[in-house]
């Protein structure tokens, strides 16, 4: 009986009190600062030791089927996960990446010019930095946080984004990793996707086999995701809009970060009406007005690319008008041709099909 004070009820209370004290202490403890960002790209783990060309053995190359337009720069991309960790694919449209995930994207304009680096820190937040290659292409050093503009000769310039601008695109989506997703890594790749790159072999099955992806809905494993569309042109058009615009024009979610203009361009791999939702949103009146025009134009007018707001804003490089609003100085003529072909010739058939 002497030891009754640690009987289960007391023990439970003691545990609760200690837990509460622990939680309170943790809440008020200063946040553990993340490791400083390496000054050199070679120290981020991308390359084999002593090299700036040979990729490290634990780093995996990948290529999204609908790449982002970056003024014609050629790109290479890689991902690395901490040993023993995996991506949780249960939320098929918003994969959960483990802490310690690192991703790199290398931009080349005749030579390597920039490598962007995203890292998920131990507190769950994401860090975005950029490295600029020297003229000889032998070393890349950390860029200033407020970005910079490089001259490529003539009028051509190359903008290194500020960290704020990194967030403007990457934090618009439910997950800030934009090109590494179920749709982008589907083995059923779109042959008409503008600027399509050869598959690196990193698709959903390969990731599952490697142990890097778990809990993927079995339907996606058995049948790789594909955008539902009336025609191949429409599929490629919707895919382009997903890859280039969907991170800001997504479905409103708990983050509240998507732009509140009622335009939905992000595709879902689990919602069967995903393409229909996108098409419906594009048929609504646009908030955009050209000076002096009072009526509300539609983002997309079936059969009339000329009067549609979408290609107008894709074509413009007036910073007040252009879409996307950052990350590009040159309109994507190949994508514009695709979008205009889709609006002029493919959308009417979609409309007719529904009648």
């Amino acid at each position: 009986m002497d030891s009754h004070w640690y009987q289960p009820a007391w023990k439970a209370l003691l545990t609760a009190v200690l837990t509460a004290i622990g939680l309170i202490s943790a809440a008020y403890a200063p946040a553990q600062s993340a490791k400083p960002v390496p000054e050199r790209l070679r120290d981020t783990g991308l390359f084999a030791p002593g090299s700036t060309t040979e990729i490290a053995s634990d780093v995996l190359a990948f290529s999204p089927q609908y790449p982002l337009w970056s003024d014609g720069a050629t790109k290479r991309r890689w991902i690395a996960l901490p040993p023993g960790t995996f991506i949780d694919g249960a939320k098929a449209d918003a994969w959960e990446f483990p802490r310690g995930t690192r991703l790199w994207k290398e931009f080349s304009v005749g030579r390597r010019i920039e490598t962007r680096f995203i890292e998920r820190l131990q507190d769950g937040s994401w860090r975005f930095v950029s490295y600029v290659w020297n003229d000889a292409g032998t070393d890349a050093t950390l860029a200033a946080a407020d970005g910079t503009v490089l001259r490529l000769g003539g009028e051509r310039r190359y903008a290194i984004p500020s960290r704020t601008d990194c967030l403007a695109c990457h934090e618009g989506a439910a997950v800030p990793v934009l090109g590494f997703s179920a749709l982008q890594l589907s083995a059923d790749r779109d042959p008409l996707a503008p600027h399509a790159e050869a598959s690196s072999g990193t698709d959903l099955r390969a990731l599952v086999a490697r142990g890097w992806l778990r809990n993927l809905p079995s339907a996606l494993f058995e049948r790789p995701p594909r955008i539902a569309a009336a025609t191949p042109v429409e599929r490629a058009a919707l895919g382009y809009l997903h890859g280039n615009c969907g991170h800001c024009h997504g479905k409103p979610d708990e983050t509240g970060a998507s732009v509140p203009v009622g335009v939905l361009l992000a595709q879902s791999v689990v919602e069967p009406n995903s393409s229909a939702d996108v098409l419906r949103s594009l048929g609504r009146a646009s908030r955009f007005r050209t000076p002096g025009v009072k009526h509300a134009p539609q983002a997309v007018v079936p059969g009339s690319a000329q009067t549609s707001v979408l290609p107008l804003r894709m074509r413009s490089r007036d910073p007040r008008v252009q879409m996307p609003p950052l990350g590009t100085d040159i309109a994507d003529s190949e994508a514009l041709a695709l979008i205009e072909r889709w609006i002029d010739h493919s959308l009417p058939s979609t409309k007719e099909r529904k009648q």
Partner: protein
Amino acid sequence: MTASVFKARRHLASLGAAVLTTAALALPAAAADTPTTSQDDKVGRGKYLVTIAGCNDCHTPWKMGPTGPAPDMSRMLSGHPESFQLPPAPAPQGPWLVSAAATNTAWSGPWGVSFTANLTPDAETGLGKWTLRNFVDTIRSGRHMGRGRQILPPMPIPMYKHMTDEDLEAVFAYLKSIPAVSNRVPEPLPAASPVAAK
């Protein structure tokens, strides 16, 4: 053994008393922190911040009154009036780079012509569909809706971006609480472009 048990019990009793005292102290605060009161406090704080930060100086159209120009509070924070037709802005001369319309809602400078935004909660022309995250991202990034084009002068983003999250939340709560005004503010104009008649 018995003594040590009593000692342990006294410690536990002290700890329990401390926990209960803490809980007792915490309870009134929790009770006072009801959603309604908290929201009222937030709106009040937001009103104060909007007032002293000068938001009405540019986002409420000014009109001439008996004592001179003053904000027209019947159109409070509704931005540049879409019905207000403007001739082209005067060309800059010497050090005089910037011109402002009489309403204080249209500004011409090296960046072009900017029109102040409708900050009322109108769903189609104001902040009605904005989330708090949209608002915070806008002020932090200096980009329209946090992701779009850059916000133009004279909006003091370089200063306002340093506001705390709590203050931004209060400002947004207040802006969501004011009367909605339907007013579609024009898109900005490029530099050296004549102002189109509206």
